[in-house]
């Protein structure tokens, strides 16, 4: 196993809070924990509040699923009405939605595919979701909420938003990576913006392009918007040729890329080949961001310890528990029995799949607590440690 520290991963420190506010918060916390054994009063009252507001949660806002609309055979949109108090979003941001699947809280991240202007007018947001082969959540959401229901919504997050000002934009989308751009384009149209936008949209087949009719209408409505559809069957994967041919003034544009991880990495490589200034480029991975470290072997997995800003390269053989991996990387996670009984070594896994040696099962891909002493990395991982 080898490790390295990554300065880009080091924890962000928030500015110093005013002292009075800090002690006020501290006092409230102390009161809540003495009177209710919870850090916040709301956590203690949550089960009682749920009597009146099912699915009410301290971990987010309630949102009602109003409609599950089919876009393509394997793509659908969820139309959601977030509860009052949900603060809204900027075009390009994403939310985490959580729902209860057989008693288990599962959560996934999706970009909002509708515009802030639409939300302001109707109070609704849309998420457009591709059904993953053998995915645990995406096929289930579609069926389970067909008749409506309630989910928990996080605040909007992410900084994949268009640059300020009116510099021309080049948007590069791969597959379902079109979703944040739909939000952005709708927003520009609503605002009557004259900002020039070129969209290069890649998909596997000609039948896999989303929102065709909507984009046709936008083309009529927004003369400064132009769209190029490139399916992989006829055009292959993204190349420098595509950029030069369809967007010759690319170096004068702010560039945004969204899609699956390999596509983004290919697009970034192409742009650096074309000598584009990295400061001009923004991108959003539709999955865990790749860990920035070379693998010693192709079969190795990479584990990022986020809080301590250390990455580790873990060989597939012999299998090592994450507790051992963390300790060899110089970390000191809390542990006790080391055989999965005492639950002291619990740690939050933010993304990736682990194999549980006690139950012989694979974990979910999303964020959840794992026991380090009985977990082995089955894919690249990001751990909150």
């Amino acid at each position, binding site marked *: 196993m080898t490790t390295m520290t990554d300065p880009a991963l080091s924890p962000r420190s928030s500015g110093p809070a005013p002292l009075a506010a800090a002690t006020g918060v501290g006092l409230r916390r102390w009161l809540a924990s003495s009177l209710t054994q919870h850090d916040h009063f709301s956590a203690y*009252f949550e089960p009682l509040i749920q009597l009146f507001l099912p699915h009410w949660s*301290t971990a987010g806002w309630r949102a009602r699923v109003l409609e599950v609309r089919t876009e393509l055979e394997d793509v659908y949109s969820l139309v959601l009405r977030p509860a009052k108090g949900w603060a809204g979003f900027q075009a390009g941001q994403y939310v985490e939605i959580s729902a209860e699947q057989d008693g288990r809280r599962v959560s996934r991240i999706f970009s909002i595919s509708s515009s802030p202007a639409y939300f302001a007018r109707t109070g609704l947001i849309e998420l457009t979701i591709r059904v993953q082969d053998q995915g645990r959540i995406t096929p289930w959401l579609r069926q389970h909420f067909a008749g409506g229901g309630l989910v928990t919504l996080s605040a909007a997050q992410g900084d994949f938003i268009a640059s300020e000002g009116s510099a021309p934009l080049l948007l590069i989308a791969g597959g379902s990576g079109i979703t944040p751009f739909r939000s952005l384009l709708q927003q520009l149209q609503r605002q009557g913006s004259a900002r020039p936008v070129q969209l290069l949209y890649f998909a596997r087949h000609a039948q896999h392009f989303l929102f065709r009719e909507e984009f046709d209408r936008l083309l009529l409505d927004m003369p400064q918007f132009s769209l190029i559809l490139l399916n992989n069957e006829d055009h292959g994967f993204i190349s420098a040729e595509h950029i030069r041919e369809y967007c010759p003034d690319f170096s004068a544009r702010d560039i945004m890329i969204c899609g699956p991880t390999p596509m983004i990495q290919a697009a970034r490589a192409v742009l650096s080949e074309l000598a584009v200034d990295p400061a001009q480029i923004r991108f959003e991975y539709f999955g865990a961001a790749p860990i920035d470290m070379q693998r010693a072997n192709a079969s190795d997995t990479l584990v990022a310890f986020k809080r301590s800003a250390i990455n580790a390269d873990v060989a597939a053989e012999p299998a090592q528990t994450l507790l051992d991996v963390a300790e060899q990387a110089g970390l000191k996670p809390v542990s006790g*029995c080391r055989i999965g*009984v*005492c639950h002291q070594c619990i740690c939050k896994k933010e993304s990736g799949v682990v194999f549980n040696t006690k139950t012989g099962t694979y974990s979910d891909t999303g964020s959840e*607590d794992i026991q380090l002493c009985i977990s082995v990395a089955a894919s690249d991982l990001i751990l909150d440690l």
Partner: protein
Amino acid sequence: MTTSIPSAETLLSFEQEINAIRDETLSKVGQADADYIRRVIRFQRGLDLSSRLVIVLGFIHPLFWVAGVLMLALAKILDNMEIGHNVMHGQYDWMNDPHINSRNFEWDIVGDGDSWKRYHNHEHHTYTNIIGKDRDYGYGLLRLSDDIPWRKKNLWQFFTYLNLSLLFQWGVAYHELAAERIFFGKRRKESHLPISRSELKSAFFSKIGKQVFKDYIFWPLLCFPVFWSVLLGNLCANLIRNLWTSTIIFCGHFTEDAQTFSEEECKNETRGQWYYRQILGSSNLEGARWFHILTGHLSCQIEHHLFPDIPARHYPAMAQKVEQVCKTHGIPYNTGSFAHQYLTVVKRVLRYSFPDKAGQEPLTNH
């Protein structure tokens, strides 16, 4: 007291059958369990809050006070046993709920949860009833086996036991500190604690401060005109909870036939041997569903020790199967009514009050 260990083949087939019971139950864990624990928590919260009000109504009629105290005691018992103990064992971690999980849950008792998890989940459950390793065994105050040398103080250990029961939550809170010899005696040389001694001490006092503030300052002051009546009511509720939890726990491990083990016997043990030790070291109580719930399903102490992280509401059904498997493998399975098991605990505490064997004679000898 030790027994001869069954043959390796017997233990292997025993292990496989116990594993099968575990796997079958695990496959059923899901929505019903999540709904159940939420229902219990909701009921507990309602009871906790309303009991405070009913205690105050004691100024109208003392019966309100009595009812309020019983309600508060029940709320605390549910919080500590059916909710706290089970949640802190990780039985509901699969729910991925931000509050109902072993990492965040804190209970309504003076012992701080993290500290309890360290010694109970780890030492007690891994080294169940191994003399010298399992500090829960007799809590260092009682002599409950011939393997512990007799001392004069054991003569009055029945009274020590009664005191321990009444003050149980304080004993439990003090437990980990006692072992680390934080206040008295020599410092332990090789401490394997993941936190420093001063952190341990401050966690201890901080939790005590919070609990004392809640039950003996905040609520009495809030209901100022009936300050003393509220304070006394809270004290009584805590004592009732202490008596109940300690009685149930003693019935789970210190009935007359519960076995103890030496460290050598447990070196390199297989899963089957581990199961075997868990079964011999524990005893079950039979009763109605409400009784199981009030004990936090520690009435199925054997199943709790075999499957500490399976939601406890499955234990009674598993118990029937485990008992059957034990029978076919010739492994003793200790179960009986609450009254019967409790009587044997009392007998055991009395018997080991006296030096080896002598205690088997009638009490009048001394």
